């Protein structure tokens, strides 16, 4: 098999990895906001439940979470699994796992905004929603960009975990090729593709940070 063919097959696998990556960000980035707010709720019980959810998500392997979400519908509710179930379970597991991490990053950002900002907005007559959307959130975004960047880059590599459940992303393809071709080259190519993509992610994040660099506080 030529290197070119390997490239092509790995490229197809990477397209699946990219989908996991994109769907996870689309779901987890917004979902993290309500989770962070619940985590800071006035009500102890709400805080407690959210804390427990975050603890489970961070304290157990994402791989096991994928399996749990894949098998739960069948064992708990008796729902018949379909060929699509693996893919759906993967996306759901990734989203709720990453939402927990993002929520903690949002919380750190929210708690770092000085109380004076809220007081100034209150005295000026902003509603609570206006204060959050126009005053607090833009400042939070700037402060958490480096931490979010870390998670986004980790996510690119974590997509390879979908291999365990049998979703044919790039790492599965690479492993199959290594076995069939008796060569380590597919792994090297896969590593290069992950790195090149993450390099692009870094460049993009750098640009966003630069754009937010018009002020400091």
């Amino acid at each position: 098999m030529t290197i070119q063919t390997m490239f092509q097959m790995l490229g197809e696998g990477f397209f699946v990895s990219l989908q996991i990556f994109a769907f996870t960000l689309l779901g987890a980035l917004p979902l993290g906001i309500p989770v962070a707010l619940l985590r800071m709720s006035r009500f102890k019980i709400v805080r407690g439940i959210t804390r427990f959810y975050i603890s489970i998500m961070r304290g157990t392997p994402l791989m096991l979470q994928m399996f749990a979400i894949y098998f739960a519908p069948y064992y708990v509710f008796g729902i018949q699994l379909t060929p699509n179930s693996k893919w759906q379970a993967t996306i759901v597991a990734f989203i709720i796992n990453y939402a927990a991490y993002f929520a903690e990053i949002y919380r750190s950002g929210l708690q770092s905004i000085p109380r004076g900002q809220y007081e100034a907005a209150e005295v000026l007559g902003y509603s609570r929603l206006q204060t959050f959307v126009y005053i607090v959130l833009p400042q939070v975004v700037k402060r958490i960009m480096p931490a979010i960047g870390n998670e986004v880059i980790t996510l690119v590599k974590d997509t390879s975990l979908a291999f365990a459940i049998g979703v044919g992303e790039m790492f599965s393809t690479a492993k199959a090729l290594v076995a069939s071709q008796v060569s380590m080259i597919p792994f090297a190519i896969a590593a290069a593709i992950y790195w090149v993509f993450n390099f692009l992610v870094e460049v993009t994040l750098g640009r966003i940070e630069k754009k937010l660099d018009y002020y400091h506080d």
Partner: protein
Amino acid sequence: MSVVSIQDARKAFGGTEVLRGITLEVPRGEVVAIIGPSGGGKSTLLRCMTLLERLDGGSLSYGEVIAAEQGADGRTHYAKPDVLKQARGCFGLVFQNYNLFPHYTVLKNIMDAPLRVQKRPRAEVEAQARELIAKMGLAGCEDKVPCQLSGGQQQRVSIARALALNPEVLFFDEPTSALDPELTGEVLRVIKALAAEQMTMVVVTHEMGFAREVADRVVFMDGGVIVEEGPAAQVIDTPREQRTREFLARMDG
């Protein structure tokens, strides 16, 4: 009718009584300076008058707008949110550490609340904002962000931001305490110019010279009560109370 009136204000944090029956009425056009040692309750009084803290007892009103009333149970009951919103429209507050919005330009810091909160037309708000910028000696700073300004400039922006909402009364919480002595003067000059225009103001300050010169009335607070009040010259030059004399002597020393 007073622009702002607080009657028998009481407030405790935990078991500590910080305000023990304060009554203060400010008629239109008056400049009141509140002086006194740290921990005497000055800042808490100001925070209660600007609705940042809630009174335990007493009442608070702005002109006709009653923000809080003392009930038959002796405790303060606050008005509904829409009344409090109306009350907030009556006053402005200038903080010790400015609390400008760091991600907004000077112009946007001044224009944002009139646009979003008061929903006034942009052209009118911008005209007023530019006028205020000129008046505060900030010409050329319109498109800068707060971190590019000196402390004195930032404090003048925050005064402009408060004025842009056309308040009936302006509160200042130690407006120059975070500033170098050389920057203090420029902020005090601006406040003096506002006094000359008959702006109603309540200023918590440690600047005795400024209080003496600009304030119509000086209120000396200590231990959660008003120990002495009267015309600025009288309270500062010839205080009647022993505690006032001791405080002023320490300030001079």
